[in-house]
């Protein structure tokens, strides 16, 4: 379980995170939603240790991150997988080399064992024939799938995704969302997804944390978000006519 207590982070005069407290259950998919500039990415980067928080603690299964020594931090990070907003694939490597990279760095597997694992993972993300392509030759959706393959190749305990379906068409976005959900369930990973895509909110995830202006404005389950009266949440989630209708239908169905 990941426990976050009173997380605060500033950059100069800009107070980005103003004290966020929440928990993320093991083996579940949680969504962090909020408008652009609400502090989602900074929050995720603090969880990953890419930014050091000014105040507060982040605890991974009972271990407070800031109290770990550098070797323990390194061990913990090797159990994390991350899917970046722009995929962040190494552009000097082929897709197979990108996926194999964590195995080369952290395992003592033979080349054939690594190759087998890469074949398996690329098949799992529906890219069985993409081994020798360069990232620049892959479409946005393919790059996201390669990033997911790279993130899960070393059997991570925690998976973090920063806007995994940004810049993708709606159909591919749903494919990516479902793939993340399936992988989370299949390998019992603790997954945290940053998104402002309401389709993702409707499709996947058990828990939703809503951030606004660096504060947790609301948290609850996927079902709760349909019935909440919290104006800040409803203004954001149901800003489009489509989602207003979806909510109306859900509430009508629920009442009958």
């Amino acid at each position: 379980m990941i426990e976050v207590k009173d997380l605060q982070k500033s950059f100069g005069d800009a107070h980005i995170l103003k004290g966020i407290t929440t928990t993320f259950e093991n083996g579940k998919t949680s969504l962090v939603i909020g408008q652009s500039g609400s502090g989602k990415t900074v929050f995720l980067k603090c969880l990953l240790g890419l930014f050091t928080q000014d105040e507060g603690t982040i605890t991974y299964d009972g271990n407070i991150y800031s109290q770990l020594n550098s070797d323990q931090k390194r061990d913990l990070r090797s159990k994390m997988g991350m899917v970046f907003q722009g995929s962040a694939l190494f552009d000097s490597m082929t897709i197979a080399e990108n996926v194999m990279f964590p195995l080369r760095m952290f395992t003592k597997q033979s080349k054939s064992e690594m190759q087998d694992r890469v074949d398996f993972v690329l098949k799992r993300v529906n890219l069985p024939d993409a081994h020798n392509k360069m990232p620049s030759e892959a479409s946005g959706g393919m790059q996201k799938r390669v990033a997911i393959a790279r993130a899960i190749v070393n059997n991570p305990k925690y998976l973090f995704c920063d806007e995994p379906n940004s810049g993708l068409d709606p159909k591919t976005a749903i494919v990516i969302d479902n793939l993340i959900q399936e992988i989370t369930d299949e390998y019992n990973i603790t997954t945290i997804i940053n998104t402002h895509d309401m389709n993702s909110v409707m499709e996947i995830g058990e828990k939703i944390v809503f951030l606004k202006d660096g504060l947790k404005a609301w948290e609850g389950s996927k079902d709760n978000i349909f019935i909440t009266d919290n104006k800040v949440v409803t203004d954001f989630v149901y800003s489009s006519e489509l989602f207003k209708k979806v909510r109306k239908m859900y509430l009508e169905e629920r009442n009958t």
Partner: protein
Amino acid sequence: MTYLHNIGAYFLMIKDMFRKPTKWSVMKTLIFKDIDDLIMGSLGIVAFISFFVGGVVTIQTALNIDNPLIPKYLVGFATRQSIILEFAPTFISIIMAGKVGSFITSSIGTMRVTEQIDALEVMGINAINYLVFPKFIALMLYPFVISIAMFLGIVGGMAACFFGGYSSIDDYIIGIQTDFIPFHIAYAFIKTFAFAFLLATIPSFHGFYMKGGALEVGKASTTSFVWTSVVIILLNYILTQMLLS
């Protein structure tokens, strides 16, 4: 204050370069790749510039010696001294600051902009060691490039003498053998090693700590060239004062 902060950050980067080393099997590949990119990839331009600048030094020296009492072999002597002491180690290093330095800054800077460095750090990899150390090791072969520059500069001078008729080949060869001081070679290579360190680390610093997007990658490359050149020139003065005076 910003300068002080950057100087401090630069030395911390150098310290981090030797911490938490990357797995040798991976590092070996990175070093060979950087040797290919930074050393082998520079040989062509270094050879071309050295040969022709050696020729120009010879022509200018010959044209300025109009006193019949001054022996012709002095052309070879002056060319050798200019090339070994200054042209090959310093002038070529300034050119390399443009070629290799901007390549290093832009490649690392692009990795920063596209979150590839974040991806390395999330995996628990010491990104500075992974990215900068192989470049540092590759550039320890830089004296090899400078040796070629020295040789081709002197050959270029000889070719200019021969084709321009400024002195005979025999005079030129006598000139390049006259009053040879082996320590001058040592001095040139001490400078070369120091410049190699700067060529690997200053552009890496500017790439690694850059902020912004694609435009800033270009700006960082320019800034890195300027600072690498300034530090090379300053260090050249300090080392010359220390080693030759």
